């Protein structure tokens, strides 16, 4: 990889990581981590696998990631101008924004009426899928590996055969009176 290509790749990855971390924030991976802002003490979308998921061609957005990163950085530059911010040139503009500023910008991009709203919602959807369902990997394996999203949501582990069953499911007693119009099929009248 040439130096320019490598730099472009780095820009794309950190920009998209910063976006995913705005959707579901996580803990910094190191003291030098700029993309993940460190707004939360536990792993967020990035740690959950958002980058792996959006780079998978099955999602349908993997070919669009350069465009996504470029647009995010353009929007970040405009945002900085509008708000009189002096962005650190060592990192891409979106990464240079603080967490609250990234949040404000994502709210603008996904607000009803924004011309590209559908695209940003789509990218957000995959960030969610990485966190709340580990869609890039098998669910049982993700749980076994301590996937941050599934673990935080306390999804129960499967049985030995890889399947879920809940032997206890009901309070087992009548908890309300039936509607007086209920027919003998159990339907409304």
């Amino acid at each position, binding site marked *: 990889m040439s130096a320019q290509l490598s730099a472009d790749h780095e820009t794309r990855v950190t920009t998209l990581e910063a976006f995913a971390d705005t959707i579901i924030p996580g803990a910094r991976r190191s003291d030098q981590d700029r993309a993940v802002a460190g707004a939360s003490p536990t792993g967020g979308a990035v740690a959950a696998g958002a980058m792996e998921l959006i780079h998978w061609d099955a999602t*349908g957005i993997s070919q669009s990631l350069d465009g996504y990163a470029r647009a995010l950085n353009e929007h970040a530059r405009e945002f900085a101008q509008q708000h009189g911010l002096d962005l650190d040139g060592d990192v891409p503009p979106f990464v240079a924004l603080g967490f609250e500023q990234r949040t404000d910008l994502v709210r603008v991009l996904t607000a009803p009426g924004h011309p590209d709203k559908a695209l940003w919602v789509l990218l957000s959807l995959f960030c969610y899928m990485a966190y709340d*369902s580990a869609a890039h990997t098998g669910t049982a394996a993700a749980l076994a590996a301590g996937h941050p*999203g599934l673990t935080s949501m306390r999804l129960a582990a499967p049985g030995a055969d890889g399947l879920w069953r809940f032997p206890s499911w009901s309070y087992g007693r009548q908890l309300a009176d039936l509607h007086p119009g209920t027919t003998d099929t159990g339907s409304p009248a």
Partner: protein
Amino acid sequence: MNSVERTDVLVVGTGFGGAIAAYHLAAGGARVVMLERGPWLTAADYDHDFKLGSSYTRLFDFTVGDGMSVLGGNCVGGGSVVYFAAMPRAPRFVFERRGSVNRRMWPSSITRDTLDPWYDRVAESIAITRQGWDDVSYSGGLWAAACRHAGRTANPVPAAVDTAACTNCNWMMAGCRFDAKQSLLLNYLPAALAHGAAIRPLHEVQSIARNPDGGYRVHYQLVDAEDYRITAGEGSIDAEVVVLAAGAAATPVILQRSAAALGPMPHAVGRYFSGNGERLNTAVLNEERVREVLGLELDPAAFQIGKGPTVANWDRLDGSLPEYTRFSLEQLYFPPGLGTILALTGGQDPRWFGLEKKELLSHWQKWLIIFQMIEDDNEGVFGPPPARGNADRVSQQMLGLGTLSYKPTLNTQAAWAMADAECKDILERDGLATVTPWTNDLVGAYTVHPLASCRIGDDPRTSALDDRHELRGHPGIFVTDGSAVPAALTVNPAMTISALAERAVPAIVRAARERGVDVRYGAPAPDGSTAGRRGTAPLVPALGG
């Protein structure tokens, strides 16, 4: 030489509308071919897995429109494989609805009384359990107790579930691994196959043309088994009669695309779409208050059973109330990955993403989801059809962009607001929970029960089908899926879609006979039972049977 395959009856779609029609026609002696755009999976194939490409994503389609998104089945068995199997009959007042057209929307020939025998036929064919309180999930029990605490009633919901076989696995929406859910794969479809019908999965119907002999030619494309964005060939089948049952988000699109070859479609094709008035509220329960006020414990392990609905509140299903003020509130619970993005944090500045939302997700086991079904205003309209199928596919499965546009009217918005307020009144009473509706701002309103995009009715200006489900101006084409249902039902629609499909069969049989097909009406239920047939026999002559 004509190499195009011929059959008597071509059925598009294998969900409730398609499977029921296909069974009766095959049992009556017709040659029947069913085309299904999704894969053909059975119990052993149903993974307990959220991974993209597992059965879970292969079975579904999520179509994003402008103001409305639709989640539907995409597999042999259609919605019956992925739904929650709630099978209530629609309340009596539904059939008298007038809506914004201010005259009866349903055909005069259909009332609850005239539909009940057809409901009975379905109940004889698909094993439906009138669930008891022992079958009610923890979340359903909690909803019942909250309703009682608020002076309301609550009902276990009739469901097509063999409760003895159910393991409460949490994966009910991903097909039933244990064959507890009585999907069409266990009744109508095997019976249709036994009578010689053929099912062709991964055949996506694109359009219909008329042949010189008055029959129809149905064009399809073959869809790759793994990546639905890819097609691998195409073909055509000739048939005397076509039964369209591709679902309310796809049937009108096929007809729109066919207009070039078939001629003009009725005005109502692709219009009057209803989302069944559906909307979700998330209640975050306060464990301590639930214990103190209701005397119930939230068992964290048990409170993630993705099963439902098991309990509904029907107090507002009161025919004496004005239209748009009647609704039901049904408890749901399902695994993550199916819309958690739409849950909003509460307070002054609700958000669907960010730090507070992450916190909300971590309390997922304390969520109680309430599913409301109001009377909406049939606002949906389909735009010009996409190049193929009913959506421009984005991901290999699951996600596509459709042309449906839905701008809720003040009637619909007011009805949702009323149902939201009722959820709050019940669940925020005495601090039991904090309730917030899901946002419509991201992907629009969201329905899992699309209806009415090609509806039956007496008025040709507002209905695409006559009361026997035949497409106006196009004899020999019938529509039997949810798109034929005229309006929102205030309850889950599968039972009504099925009863209407049963009722439509005599006229389809007659049309086939008139076209020279040697077919008779009068098959028993798929398992051979005949009580339902006896019940509907007096109604059949008026339907052409």
